[in-house]
């Protein structure tokens, strides 16, 4: 009786209403996301027999994923490419976000943001392919540089290698860096900047000591939003990377769809996730000072 009334009270409470309301979405995420993620973790400890899976737990897949110099190289390259892309994207994006937040009239800001986001709602595959056209042997960059007489022979170091992957991905993830930085800059109380100037700081020192630290939560968010998906990108390395630009997603795809070795593919996927999580946590930890700032 007591239990029933307590249940009755609970089921009418705010907490129960909230839980009931969120349950369809939460269940969907549980079945379609949490369970599959658990499944690939489980798979990564099994062995691939011919046409079947051998159900004895083993660490062999991890030994191969971490020990084989080929996979180690691909993993390190993915980390390096993702790091370079993040650095390039965030450094190039910051001034744009700064300009839109500080120098554009408030009524015009959403128009600018709209202009920045438009190119990214168009076919990703075709965009990447067009970078191949821009950077190619007879491409836009080479033909214009040769037309201007700056170079005699087409540059070959800009396509089918890591450079091409970095350029293409830095383009693809630009808005993901601009928007969080813009939001952080918008939240800054402008009177703090006036106070700093009144107290005799120069424009640069005001930026360095007031604006930048207050914008750091946005920068940290931008870094994570660019870094994490970039490391798992498949299309760009496949189209513009050439043999020496392959990344971890290409290795995972190869194991799953071509070689049918699910356990090894899963071990590679889980390893990639662990590394990404570790790097992200370290990054957040190093920047914890800025994240504690009350907005």
């Amino acid at each position, binding site marked *: 009786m007591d239990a029933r009334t307590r249940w009755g009270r609970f089921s009418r409470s705010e907490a129960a209403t909230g839980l009931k309301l969120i349950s369809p979405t939460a269940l969907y995420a549980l079945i379609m996301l949490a369970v599959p993620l658990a499944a690939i973790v489980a798979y990564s400890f099994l062995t691939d027999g011919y046409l079947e899976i051998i159900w004895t737990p083993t660490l062999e897949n991890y030994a191969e994923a971490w020990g084989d110099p080929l996979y180690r190289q691909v993993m390190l390259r993915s980390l390096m490419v993702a790091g370079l892309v993040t650095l390039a994207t965030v450094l190039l994006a910051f001034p744009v976000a700064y*300009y839109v937040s500080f120098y554009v009239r408030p009524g015009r800001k*959403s128009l600018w943001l*709209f202009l920045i986001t438009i190119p990214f709602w168009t076919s990703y595959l075709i965009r990447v392919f067009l970078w191949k056209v821009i950077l190619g042997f007879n491409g836009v960059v080479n033909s214009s540089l040769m037309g201007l007489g700056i170079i005699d022979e087409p540059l070959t170091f800009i396509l089918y290698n890591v450079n091409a992957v970095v350029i293409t991905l830095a383009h693809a993830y630009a808005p993901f860096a601009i928007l969080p930085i813009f939001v952080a800059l918008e939240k800054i109380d402008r009177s703090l900047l006036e106070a700093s100037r009144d107290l005799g700081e120069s424009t640069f020192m005001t930026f360095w000591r007031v604006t930048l630290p207050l914008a750091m939560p946005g920068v940290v968010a931008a870094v994570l939003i660019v870094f994490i998906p970039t490391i798992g990108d498949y299309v760009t390395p496949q189209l513009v990377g050439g043999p020496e630009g392959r990344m971890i997603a290409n290795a995972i795809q190869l194991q799953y769809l071509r070689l049918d070795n699910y356990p090894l593919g*899963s071990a590679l*996927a889980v390893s990639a996730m662990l590394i990404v999580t570790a790097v992200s946590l370290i990054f957040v930890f190093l920047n914890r000072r800025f994240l504690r700032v009350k907005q």
Partner: protein
Amino acid sequence: MRGLRVYTIFYLIFLYAPIILLPLFAFNASTIIAFPLSGFTTEWFAELWAAPAMHQALRNSLIIAVSSAVLATCLGIFAARAATRFTFPGKGPIMGLIMLPLVLPEIIVAVSLLVVLLGVGINLGMWTVILGHVLICTPFSIAILNSAFLSLDGSLEEAAYDLGETRWSTFRLITLPLIMPGIISSLLISFTISLDEFIIAFFLTGTEPTLPVYIWSQLRFPTKIPSIMALGTILVALSIVLLIIAEYYRRLGVRKTGGKDTGGFL
């Protein structure tokens, strides 16, 4: 701050570079995608019109995109409403799990779903792609609807309760009309994301290719590329129109609820 302005304009040119090239090659008479351009033609659009495989892929993509948009927006309404109005135990972790696809590399979502679907013995097809797309569209839908629910004045709902409306009728008569612009822009954004998504479709589609999967298969054949450029041009024009509609409704929503326009989709 002249320098900053010039830099921003150059940056915009960098952002738009691929999109400016697209129509140039779509109307270029040569099959080789390189400069100099050789002449004007609409041949590639005609070729596209006569490709039955493309029409089938487009039909598949539209079915998938419409279903994913509707399902993701429904799930988004539940979650955004719960997240903005109620506090409940485990709210942080639950929302974290739901929003996780935003930061998870898509290939991980794709392979993990593939493993489970094949493990359970489900045949791959259009609806397995829908399952994956709903998962990645829902966080975007929640982000849009969260701001719609947050800018909603709670006292309007209270007034409706006080005047004797039930929970459901209040939602239908007061809340739903006010968040309708948010719902429409959520539908359009989810539709656009699903239409353009490649990796999940590539892994989960089986023998029913979506438009991006079809494009991917054509990129291997140099002679097919001009008609892919034509297709790209049509898609760009279409998504700009959809985005302008989505932006219009978002602004309409902001004005309706009397909020301040902070701009942007995120």
